[in-house]
């Protein structure tokens, strides 16, 4: 009796817009987007007008395409080299991390085996270990093995995502019905084949979430390549941009801030696009993960 009016007509006070909340959120959005707006505006300026004009107003000659061209060709096109390196780190590092987390999380969720509890405790403990605390010992170890200053030095540590494993594990215990796996076994399908043909599809939103966050982590990686690499030809974009930026700081140096700014814009565009295009996946995957904390 009570339910009828509310289901026919939405409760009026739910629909009322709040002016205060709107103002609060507009302030939030301005804060979040202001530096990006500054970046876009600044990427249209020459080095000279960059230093002499108000940051959020277009000024001087429109030099955006000129800046892009200079960014891509400066120092024999090293920016494109850094871009290519970053792609390698992301595809191999983040791709590998996602695959390992998916396999492992599924193994933890859908099978029991001796020592499972220990494995679980060790991995959860590892989430609490700060990644940068490990970086220095990892560097010292890798230099003993002769791995430093190679691409592997950046790729191997990014292959492990304890949190990704945890997320897939939580997701898999809900999303993959054990009865389905039983049925596949009855039909004589091998466990690996079952994983790739049946389970992986059911895990897709969780895998997409872990994958996207692994992509961000590797695309944005700074500390690890900073300590592992000394050859600029192996740098990812982040270290390369920092190198360009520091070139302007020395005495008598020729600052190339317009290239730093345009390079920064070119660096964030792909990752922003990836996030916006894959919104539906990662948002549903993230809510699934948070349900089960």
């Amino acid at each position: 009796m009570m339910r009828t009016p509310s289901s026919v007509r939405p409760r009026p006070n739910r629909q009322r817009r709040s002016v205060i909340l709107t103002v609060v959120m507009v302030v939030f959005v301005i804060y979040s987007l202001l530096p990006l707006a500054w970046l876009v505006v600044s990427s249209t300026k020459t080095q000279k007008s960059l230093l002499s004009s108000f940051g959020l107003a277009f000024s001087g000659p429109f030099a955006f395409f000129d800046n892009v061209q200079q960014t891509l060709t400066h120092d024999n096109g090293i920016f494109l080299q850094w871009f290519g390196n970053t792609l390698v780190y992301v595809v191999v590092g983040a791709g590998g991390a996602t695959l390992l987390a998916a396999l492992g999380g599924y193994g933890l969720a859908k099978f029991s085996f001796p020592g499972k509890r220990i494995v679980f405790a060790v991995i959860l403990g590892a989430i609490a270990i700060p990644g940068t605390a490990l970086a220095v010992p990892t560097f010292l170890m890798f230099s003993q093995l002769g791995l430093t200053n190679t691409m592997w030095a950046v790729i191997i540590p990014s292959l492990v995502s304890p949190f990704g494993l945890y997320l897939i594990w939580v997701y898999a215990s809900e999303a993959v019905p054990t009865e389905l796996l039983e049925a596949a076994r009855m039909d004589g399908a091998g466990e690996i084949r079952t994983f790739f043909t049946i389970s992986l599809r059911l895990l897709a939103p969780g895998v997409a979430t872990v994958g996207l966050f692994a992509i961000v982590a590797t695309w944005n990686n700074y500390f690890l390549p900073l300590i592992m690499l000394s050859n600029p030809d192996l740098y990812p974009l982040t270290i390369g941009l920092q190198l360009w930026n520091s070139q302007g700081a020395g005495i008598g140096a020729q600052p190339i801030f317009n290239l730093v700014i345009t390079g920064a814009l070119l660096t964030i565009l792909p990752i922003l696009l990836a996030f916006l295009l894959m919104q539906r996946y990662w948002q549903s995957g993230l809510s699934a993960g948070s349900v089960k904390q």
Partner: protein
Amino acid sequence: MSSIALRADTRERTATRRPRRRWTGLWFLVPFLAVFVVTILAPVVYAVGLSLFRNRLVGGDSFVGFDNYIQAFSDPKFLEGLLRVCVFLFIQVPIMLVLALIAALAIDSRRLAGAAFYRVAVFVPYAVPGVVAVLMWSFLYSDRYGLAGNLNDFLGFDFLKPFTTEWILPSIGNIVTWEFVGYNMLIFYAALRTVPEELYEAAAIDGAGPLRVVWSIKLPALRGAIVIATIFSIIGSFQLFNEPNILAGSAPGVITTYFTPNMYAYNLSFVGQQANYAATLAIIMGVVTAVIAYIVQARGARQEVR
């Protein structure tokens, strides 16, 4: 967290009666574990080993027991950095999490037009690489050609001095807040979405106002998410490195080589060639972080039981 493990265990026990599959699950984990051993366990063990030795100019490596640890706790540079990240932790993290909470509650309130837009816009900075974020903000902070300079010119005096000793920690705090407020907002928002609709309907029937709904329904539902976000923020604060290290170029003399424990460890091993002492600091920071994260988690779990 462990309650899920228990539940998952009992459920699978019935499904795994045949001994043939006893080890199958482990095989799925083998690739992960292999890399895990190489990149996490081995460095930890190696670092513990390093921390027990000391390299002397004469005589090479010698075993010194816990001397490096004793040295660390009386090292004014390390203690200064540790104190600094603690100050940062106790001021920046609450501000950021409260802002994230406000944003999440506002977006979930159903009183906003275009809530999806706000959600994405506030989250966008998380996708911006930390290096780019710091570069952008250091341009904005510049009193020569940045917005801080524009504002100071407008006011006629130096109101904002982001690169001075007094201002540098708030300047870093602002960058970190900008980078992660959206990420935390999303964690909170995701938790709010799991509140069953019937609870809101019941509250409306009982005549509960919006603040009462927030206090009695939404905040309890957020408890787990708040614990998780707090733990991640603590880990992040203790690891503070990227932002001060990149800003150091714009603020010479203000950001020292031992500004945070992590910067200190980095500079010790790469500039000072003191690998043993650097490993000691890394271990101390790892233990401190793990202990605090554990305390936060245990407190959060206890409140849930109550």
